[in-house]
């Protein structure tokens, strides 16, 4: 089992979501995040135009069975890309164990519906 975390542009969220559904990833969590670094984006507040280094992005978190890792990553890679700097990153890490609270199923079985 792997957890895939992807930081993407907010403007690409709908496309990524659709692409994930198309490869049968039908459930994930997301939240809005702020990145802070040396790159900047233009911002206007009360007529003052300035470069802001607070960058708004969206993070997706998806836990999948090993067989699904590649197609999930590809779905995100292909839809979240614009080619400009700031398209985001994808991280994949191991998940030691998972449990479905309702049934007590563990491991990969907890991640999908058998019926």
């Amino acid at each position, binding site marked *: 089992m792997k957890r895939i975390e992807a930081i993407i542009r907010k403007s690409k969220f709908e496309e990524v979501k659709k692409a994930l559904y198309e490869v049968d990833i039908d459930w994930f969590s997301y939240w809005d995040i702020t990145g802070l670094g040396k790159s900047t984006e233009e*911002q*206007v*507040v*009360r*007529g*003052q*135009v*300035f470069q802001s280094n607070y960058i708004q992005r969206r993070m997706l978190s998806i836990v999948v069975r090993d067989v699904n890792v590649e197609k999930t990553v590809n779905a995100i890679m292909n839809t979240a890309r614009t080619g400009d700097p700031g398209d985001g990153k994808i991280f994949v890490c191991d998940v030691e164990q998972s449990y479905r609270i309702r049934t007590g199923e563990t491991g990969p079985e907890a991640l999908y519906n058998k019926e």
Partner: protein
Amino acid sequence: MKKVAFIIGLLMTAGAVSAQTAPAVIPVVDTGDTAWMIVATALVLLMTIPGLALFYGGLVRRKNVLNVLMQCIIITAVISIEWMVCGYSLSFGSSHGVLAPFIGGFDWAFLNGIHIGDLSPYFISHSQPTADGGTIGTIPHIIFILFQCMFAVITPALIIGAFSERIKFKGFLVFTILWSLFIYNPIAHWVWSSDGWLFKLGALDFAGGTVVHINAGIAAIVTALMLGKRRDYQGHAIPPHNIPHVFIGAALLWFGWFGFNAGSGLAADGLAANAFLVTHIAAATAALTWALLDWFHGGKPTIVGICTGAVAGLVAITPAAGFVDLTGALIIGVAVSVICFLMVAFVKPKLGYDDALDAFGVHGIGGILGAILTGVLATPIVQSAYSGAAYGNWHQLGVQAIAVATTLAYSGVGTFLLFKLTDKLVGVRADVAEEAIGLDESQHGETAYTAFD
């Protein structure tokens, strides 16, 4: 406003007076005027809480929003009491001898000697003869006191925008009380009291451009400079934390301003209607102008921008509301947005001072522009006794300039001294940790948007 111009007042409103009970030997309350002034008074309270509180509260970061709301509501509480204790008496009462043109006395302290049945000694367009041959207003004295109370409340609240996000609450509170006593009360007396020296000089300030906006605006820049920049200020505006709050606040200010301006004639009549008209149109014009400037300069019309423009228009029309017509309102609306936009978008970042929410840039600059343009655009069509430079009366422009300059000087120097004194007494600047964690938590032990259900 508060033109106790006994003779002029009578001449101007002969029609209105005769409409009342003709053989009025005993003066009576005009129920129409009184009903409107009760509503107008409540509308002006709405400008501070929640109008200004939300407008400013939305503009700060979320760690400081409660501090702004608290400042607004405690000013409402404290200054309302101060007003009854001595503020009204010092502003609108009389004193004797050399001080009479500069400050009222303590005759009306705790509203001493003012009774339910008393009529307002202050009036503009509606008045009536008294049994002993004098002239008196048509609304209860108590309503006039309360109406003015709301002005005394909102003026120090406007200054909050300059020192937001970095002032110690105790210092803020001490300073606000001192400032109301020693700055607001005298200037209100100068401009609006029948004894006031600027009133006698003929300065025109229908609803408080000088007393409220220039006064608070200059105090704002002085306190912002003395307090220093926010420690993380980068030389440009910090994005607002809740723009819908800014919008609601601006909308409530716009709404409440009809009480502020259309109520400042102290009557429900044509002058109030004209004040309502020019107030609304100046706000609309300034809002549209700012949105277009935003669009042109920043690429997109912003909500914060159009709200700021509306407020700037309302500020600038305030002194003029009883003296200019529709044309004047359109000119003032365009002019104030252009000038304030330049001030906020270019001059402030260039000079580098941290007027956090542009209290000086909008209220100070907008107020000065409004006071000066009143001296230009005042038209005899509205009140026959008053005209400005555009109608040949250049003298009025000079008088307006004197009123602006003396207010800037007195309030500027006075604010400096009182802020210094407050710093010595209780301290004004939040320390590093207090400022970093936010004033909500460090000053009040509360957070606005908790992580708990």
